């Protein structure tokens, strides 16, 4: 699927460029795009290296366990099939907290750690598990308590009240999260998406 989107982006961009007379801009994009991607990666690399390091410290200092315990009711609700001692839960909780606080930079490393732990107990390693989709919805819906970036930009352009969008954003992203989770749950039940918490399935496969 992603390969079709990828080729589609190029094909549509190049062909439309011919008709629209923007081929020189397309040409520039081909040459400069890779460079920009590396710039983004270098920016991302610094954040990733620092925060995965700090996360490891937080994990060994039992900080993540504490967070996890505090937010158990929420994670129980979102990931009902994961056993309370599943290693992914700590990272799922930290990922959720980083998103809530508007710390996108800390969310990616925790999300990736959670993905890896979920994949470790995924009964069908080629198919994404139920919990992975939940994590995806939680991240793409952008549910956040403090939308730092947008309030900063509004301040920059001299808004009378930069944080007046605070409640509307909370409302809109809340609706998005609930809607996304609802669709995800209905679809997953219909298609019988495997769960990373299905230890029984895992054991059966190991015996084979």
């Amino acid at each position, binding site marked *: 699927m992603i390969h079709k989107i990828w080729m589609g982006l190029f094909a*549509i961009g190049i062909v439309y460029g011919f008709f*629209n007379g923007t081929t020189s801009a397309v040409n520039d994009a081909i040459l400069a795009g890779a460079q920009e991607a590396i710039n983004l990666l270098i920016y991302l690399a610094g954040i990733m290296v620092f925060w*995965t390091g700090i996360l490891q410290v937080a994990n060994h*200092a*039992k900080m993540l366990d504490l967070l996890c315990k505090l937010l158990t009711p929420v994670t129980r609700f979102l990931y009902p099939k994961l056993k309370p001692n599943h290693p992914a839960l700590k990272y799922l909780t930290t990922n959720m907290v980083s998103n809530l606080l508007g710390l996108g930079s800390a969310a990616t490393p925790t999300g990736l750690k959670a993905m890896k732990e979920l994949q470790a107990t995924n009964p069908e390693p080629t198919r994404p598990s139920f919990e992975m989709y939940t994590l995806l919805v939680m991240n793409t819906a952008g549910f*956040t308590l403090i939308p730092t970036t947008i309030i900063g930009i509004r301040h920059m352009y001299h808004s009378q009240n930069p944080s007046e969008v605070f409640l509307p954003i909370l409302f809109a992203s809340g609706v998005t999260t609930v809607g996304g989770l609802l669709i995800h749950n209905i679809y997953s039940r219909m298609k019988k998406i495997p769960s990373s918490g299905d230890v029984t399935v895992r054991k059966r496969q190991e015996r084979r």
Partner: protein
Amino acid sequence: MGSISVYILPLFLLAVFIMAFINKTNAFDHFVEGAKEGMRTTVSLVPNIVGMIVGIKVFLASGIVEAIAKLLDPILTAIGVDAHVLPLMFLRPLSGSAALSVTSDLLSIYGPDSGVGRLASIMQGSTDTTIYIITVYFAAVGLSEMKHALKLGLTADLIGFIAAIVSVSIFFG
């Protein structure tokens, strides 16, 4: 709010180090160990991100987003939505930085407290870069079946845009 959020990261870091001190763990060794893993993950993501970003850049440079926006203009005007936010709706799932630059353009042209400015602010704040998140998260564990994930993520984005429009009419109507 902006001033409170400045304290979150430093306080979190401080809490981590206090907990590490209480539990007598070797913080720096654990930091290095974890950071190495982060480094490996980032390096393994280089091809995915480079490939995706060049594709998105080519798509945007052709000017097709503006053309589609123009095409859909009458429909949006009919339901009372300013068509100027359309490029933002197309860009938001594709590229965080492109969406952010469109939003700041809109805010600088129409003013942050105008109707367009508020709608753009709420749209920017209430959805996220779906395609980027799916690419990075799925590539990190080597999953290739993204069809359903894309459908799910893009549907959530659509819900987000509708919720943003509704939200504007509730709070600023």
